């Protein structure tokens, strides 16, 4: 569940621009950027949409707060327009801030064209901050799948984070069956959230849902799976549901590339971290995919087979009830500041 910030009066393009300019409103910078991104993404050719896009691009280049610039780059990554693509390319090519490079790269995986694959790989090579390099490389790979560009599995630089991690076998005594369930939202409402809408295959629609432990995944799949045999692509997207808002969000993206007489399948977060790997086949128009969870922090061993024929989804598999790989642990924060005032005397 979630909370909404800001008055109705302020939740407009003008209100958001005012908030980002430091004028008193009821909006946080995050809320303001989200409002601009939504206005720009849903109506990029209208006056309000163009105004919102221009404002976001200006924030990316000029705002005083680095995190607000990063957030604006993430917002721009949702907006399909020449202004947004230009601003993201500029940030990916020239920004000194590694976080901004990472955010711009992720945006270009949504909006970029084939030529941007090379741009992102170059940004990865150039990046000094490790995560920026990793994110740019992952974005290049995601973009390659989105536009059908070549992927070289022998090139470690094109590998996604976790893609070569060990597969987790389902061995525990306590297991849960992975099985189809009713769609938890209306079919038409099962759509990707704005940040990752581009990672949904063209013409995709909700074909069903399945439960895995206490999570329900809504499956969006493209209409024509056979084209996956000829070039890297995206076979489908798995959505989660925000219970209070009734909205859905992209949880996993199913990437494929031709491999022998079938498909190599990699299931990733939209930001590129791998959760599952496996194989797929397309026989007589029936797409069948079998994947296993990989060893990443917080992962649970799972073995699942999904088949899709003429829009009908079949799912079967097993998952352990408890997580298999330990989660990461935050470190205790030492006394960060002189507690009595803003001298910010860092002592740990």
């Amino acid at each position, binding site marked *: 569940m979630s*909370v909404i910030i800001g008055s109705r009066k302020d939740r407009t393009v003008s209100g958001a621009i005012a908030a980002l300019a430091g004028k008193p409103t009821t909006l946080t910078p*995050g809320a303001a950027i989200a409002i601009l991104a939504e206005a720009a993404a849903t109506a990029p050719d209208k006056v309000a949409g163009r105004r919102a896009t221009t404002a976001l691009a200006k924030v990316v280049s000029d705002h005083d707060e680095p995190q607000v610039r990063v957030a604006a780059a993430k917002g721009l990554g949702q907006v399909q327009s020449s202004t947004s693509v230009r601003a993201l390319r500029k940030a990916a090519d020239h920004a000194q801030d590694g976080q901004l490079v990472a955010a711009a790269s992720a945006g270009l995986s949504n909006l970029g064209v084939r030529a941007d694959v090379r741009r992102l790989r170059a940004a990865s090579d150039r990046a000094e901050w490790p995560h920026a390099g990793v994110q740019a490389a992952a974005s290049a790979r995601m973009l390659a799948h989105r536009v059908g560009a070549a992927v070289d599995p022998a090139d470690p630089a094109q590998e996604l984070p976790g893609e070569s991690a060990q597969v987790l076998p389902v061995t525990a005594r306590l297991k849960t069956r992975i099985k189809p369930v009713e769609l938890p939202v209306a079919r038409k409402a099962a759509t990707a959230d704005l940040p990752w809408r581009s990672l949904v295959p063209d013409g995709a629609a909700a074909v069903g849902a399945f439960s895995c432990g206490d999570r329900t995944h809504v499956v969006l799949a493209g209409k024509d799976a056979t084209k996956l045999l000829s070039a890297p692509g995206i076979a489908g997207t798995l959505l989660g549901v925000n219970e209070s808002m009734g909205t859905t969000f992209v949880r996993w993206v199913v990437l494929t590339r031709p491999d022998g007489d079938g498909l190599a399948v990699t299931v990733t*977060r939209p930001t590129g971290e791998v959760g599952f790997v496996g194989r797929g086949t397309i026989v007589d128009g029936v797409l069948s995919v079998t994947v296993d969870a990989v060893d990443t922090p917080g992962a649970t061993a799972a073995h699942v087979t999904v088949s899709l024929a003429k829009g009908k989804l079949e799912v079967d598999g097993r998952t352990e*009830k408890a997580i298999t790989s330990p989660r990461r642990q*935050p470190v*205790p*924060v030492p006394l960060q500041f002189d507690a009595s005032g803003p001298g910010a005397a860092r002592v740990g």
Partner: protein
Amino acid sequence: MASLRQRAACIGIATSPLSVRRDFMGQLTNSVPVSLKTQLDRLGSKFVHVNCIQVGSDQFTFNDAVEIDRAVAKTRDLYAGAGRSMGVGRIQHFGISTADAHGRDVINSDGEAETLTDEWTVPNDALDLFFVRMYVTATAGLSRVDGPCDKNAKGMDGSVVEMNAGGGVSDFATAHELGHYLGLSHRNDATALMNPTIPNGGVITTSEADNMRDHCRMKNPC
């Protein structure tokens, strides 16, 4: 009345050495007024422990620390003022560096919030509350409703809240998202803490409080 050391031992805090403000009250700064006597009294009701996790901790400033202190103090006040009183017990502070956060200090989808809680946890009996630098969606946080208590179980087992230094919003968001985790759903009444728009009236009814007090994360009174 129970002594400070008895109460500290009850909520699992080392009693020697013991900093009242930092250890017992869980405050990062001296900027937010707190009452030791009030907190000692409140621990006579059911309470929940909370891990405050700063995502992108190296970016957090003194003002952000004050904001977290305010959020904790406000949550304590709202929960104590509920139809049936509750407390917030042990507050401990943790950090995920910007480098380790992999871009999730600025979140732009509910999926990223979910991923954050999937990957990270503090292995103790407290509720994980992740403070991210920005939450760039139509909303300002995310939590399960009636979240789990087994941190080895699958699923989202923490709450995520946007920091908003100086804006006074993250205090309501903190109490609201923890309310979800402890079992509450949205309510349209503008006075209700669980109204989906914040700031709001902050009211927790008796039946809501009963619901929260039954949650498995709630500890028995000291």
